[in-house]
């Protein structure tokens, strides 16, 4: 977590600062919960609204990071080496993990809604990998699926009360994989709620119902996934209920607290309930038990041999180690030039996804059953289109070699490197200029891929991507020509 955020977190996790110099320790005292454990104390440099916005920023980064880690694990699964008898299980597990990642996406946009309702800036940022976190003291890390990586997800989503021999064993595996672990996400959401519920801290008028048309809605972002109870029907895979995408609009204190409560409950199951199959914790635990029950040689076959924390070649000179209580984790530079270009394409489409989401939040949805449409709907669709592109490019990266001239070595895997900035320009016209920049950059990358490996000129995906980029450019030019920006 970035240091400029980190220095304020003593207010939530004071124990992190206990052994630091007195000045920091003072901040810690300033921010700690009071004796009853109920009433939060405002840290220096804040008022309550701004403090809430800061905490929501941290929450957004965590949801974003979880989602990306889970996506990486899910994309790593499969491959021709998976034994026939395991394939139904592996496909089912992948579907479950993808479902959890989709639900984290719902959490992420719901946190943006909270920010929007409070009039705070949205936050789609996060650190690159690997990195240490105050809330997740093991390093966030992109790892192919294994019992070891799964153990870290189980622990990350576990309720505070989870204990017993199995819990201890899994925590040990997680600690061995990623460093000592203490779950503090619950503490974060608890702290935000303790501020939200207090009228003295946040008066009613700070919840801006008029921002609803700008917020994400389930109708726009749910894509047919269940609202309410998680779907009963098998979707892509038999016996896997479809995900429950929670996207809550925020228009009052109650709706803000409900949104926070629901996403907290879906993820980190506040209490251990073995029967509750809906929490991420129980779903991960179920997969962990099945996977860990396999012989080690079979466990090794469920995922492709994908590198940890793959990064594109322009970072060749950097070797990063995660900080804070973490096991030593480093990046895996992609040295195969062709693979690296696919990595860049992945990063670029990831940036396009984040840009589309941010841009969509800039534009209001229609108020009257669509009498006046803005570019918002198109941006929501573009965001989903980029998710599909990420899936497609990830599918390539898990098959391509990491290292130059080592064709049988590790595979690369999706890179998920953050862009230099997620700031949108002030004017809508300039946002569309940025959109055009990104599409043009994509076309350049496709050209480079074809130059590097002429066989790529016949790659059905690249041909189709080039065409869809061309169509996107035409749409953007249409908007820029003031023919379609708003109407």
């Amino acid at each position, binding site marked *: 977590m970035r240091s400029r955020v980190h220095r304020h977190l003593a207010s939530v996790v004071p124990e992190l600062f206990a052994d630091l110099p007195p000045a920091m320790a003072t901040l810690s005292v300033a921010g700690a919960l009071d004796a009853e454990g109920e009433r939060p104390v405002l840290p220096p440099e804040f008022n309550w609204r701004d403090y809430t916005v800061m905490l929501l920023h941290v929450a957004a980064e965590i949801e974003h990071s979880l989602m990306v880690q889970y996506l990486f694990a899910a994309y790593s699964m499969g491959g021709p080496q998976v034994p026939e008898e395991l394939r139904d299980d592996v496909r089912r597990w992948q579907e479950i993990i993808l479902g959890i990642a989709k639900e984290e996406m719902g959490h992420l946009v719901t946190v943006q809604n909270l920010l929007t309702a409070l009039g705070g800036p949205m936050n789609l940022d996060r650190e690159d990998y690997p990195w240490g976190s105050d809330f997740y003291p093991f390093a966030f890390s992109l790892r192919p699926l294994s019992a070891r990586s799964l153990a870290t997800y189980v622990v990350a989503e576990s309720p505070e009360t989870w204990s017993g021999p199995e819990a201890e064993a899994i925590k040990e595996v997680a600690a061995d994989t990623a460093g000592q672990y203490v779950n503090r996400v619950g503490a974060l959401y608890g702290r935000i709620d303790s501020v939200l519920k207090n009228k003295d801290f946040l008066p009613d008028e700070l919840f801006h119902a008029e921002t609803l048309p700008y917020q994400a809605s389930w109708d726009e972002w749910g894509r047919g996934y269940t609202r309410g109870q998680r779907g009963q029907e098998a979707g892509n895979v038999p016996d896997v209920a479809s995900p429950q995408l929670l996207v809550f609009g925020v228009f009052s204190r109650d709706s803000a607290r409900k949104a926070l409560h629901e996403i907290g409950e879906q993820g980190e199951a506040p209490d251990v309930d073995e029967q509750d199959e809906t929490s991420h914790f129980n779903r991960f635990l179920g997969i962990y038990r099945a996977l860990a029950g396999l012989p080690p040689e079979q466990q090794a076959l469920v995922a492709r041999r994908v590198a940890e924390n793959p990064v594109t070649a322009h970072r060749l000179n950097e070797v990063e180690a995660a900080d804070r209580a973490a096991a030593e984790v480093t990046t895996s530079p992609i040295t195969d030039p062709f693979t690296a270009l696919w990595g860049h394409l992945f990063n670029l489409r990831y940036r396009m996804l984040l840009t589309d989401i941010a841009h969509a939040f800039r534009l209001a949805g229609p108020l009257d059953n669509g009498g006046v449409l803005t570019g918002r709907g198109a941006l929501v669709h573009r965001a989903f289109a980029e998710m599909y592109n990420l899936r497609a490019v990830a599918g390539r990266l898990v098959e391509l070699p990491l290292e130059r001239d080592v064709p049988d070595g590790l595979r690369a895997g999706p890179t998920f490197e953050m862009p230099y900035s997620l700031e949108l320009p002030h004017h809508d016209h300039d946002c569309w200029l940025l959109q055009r920049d990104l599409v043009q950059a994509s076309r350049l990358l496709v050209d480079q891929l074809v130059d590097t490996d002429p066989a790529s000129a016949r790659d059905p995906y690249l041909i189709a991507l080039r065409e869809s980029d061309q169509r996107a450019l035409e*749409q953007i030019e249409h908007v820029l020509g003031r023919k379609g920006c708003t109407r």
Partner: protein
Amino acid sequence: MTTIRELRVLPPLAIGRLGAATEPMDNYTAETDPDQPLAPRRLRPAPTLRVDPATGAITGADTPERLRFTDGHGKVRPVAPFLEVWALTDDDVLRPLTVDLLEANDLTPDDVQWRVRVGNHKIQRRTYDDDDRIDADTEWFSDHTAHVLMGLCANFLDDKFLPLGHARYVKPTPEFPGIRLRFTPAGGHVYGSAYTDRPTDPDPNVVDFLYDATRGKWRGHADQPGDPRLTIPAQIYAGDDGPDGSWVSRGYLDDECDGLVHVKLEVLGRELSAFGRIGAGPPAYAPDSVPIRTVADELDQALFGPRATDRDGLEHARAVAEEVLRRATETVRLMNTEVMNGNTVDGRVDAASTMVRQDTADTGRLYEPIMAPSLVDAGAVLALHQHVLAALRSGTAPWFADVLRDHDEVGDLTAKGRRKMPALMRGADGRSLALTRRQVDLVRLAARQAIFRQAGDETRGPR
């Protein structure tokens, strides 16, 4: 040995298309453009058999340089299919029946006999009056003249018949020795009903009055609410508002038809026979697009069952998934998604007959757009479908199986149920359209299996 043992008419089902131009439509194929895989299919001219109107013989099989769907004077060129006779010979080979094969069996083309029987029972289906059935029968023939398919009906005016096109036994030649029949559909005209006991106003919509509105009940007919035999929705005939909300028929007829083409041949004292099916529908006004669910999909399901089987390999399942997406893209291109979604358009609420209106009219459901109104900008919806198609072409497992509507979900009027795919469209039962069970199951098969492949691994067996 080439003794003819059995006959077949191939294709077993041929669908013609109406058109008033003299020259039938040229042959063409609809192919995906490899350089623009997201674009509509590209139509390519294909070798086209030309039939001499005077002799009934094929004079050539050239490929036209460009395709033209009208005669240049506003008349549509009909699609006139050929039906070929094939013979199963005693060496167990199915081969085209030709002049040579006939000769080898001591027969000539004159020994081949044809009979075409077609009907148009649209009026009878509404009125339940058998005197409203329109049928045509050529009786047996062996010559090569064009046999008009005269649709006769007990309730027609004296000496009137409904022209349903014509059938012609194509004269075999040394260059084109095959035994074929060509069905040329009718012109695509609208006919009317006239009274015999009072004057009938002229009607610019009709080319002629055929039906005796005094004798028959078709003109003035109104579907009776509550009749379980009605089509869903009912009242889908040209009409006008009548008393008590009824919908009163204007008495129009069209010249579509369907029926059987019979062929028979006596070989060594045994009469062999076979038949094929023909039909005529309206012209294709988007010939580069394929509807999301077609008769071919129904036949596929009837033949192979509703579930994917061990015979369906992963590549086939993937191809079906991509084809579904391609057709969805082609369909979206033709849809006014804002109106069909039930959006308020230019200030108009409930602007057209849509699934939204139908859900409300049939069940009293709240009138509410199906998708979020912001999402249905036509260009954006098309772009989204194109992106899905692009991603599929990467070899990615299809992930949209869980948003496909199952056959037993067509009446699910929840927000989620109405948003399943294909969306905004009506099925034959009046509720939301679903793909065939087999289409859905094949997409799911691809979704389950595609993660276990490796690029370049093209030799995958059945699942």
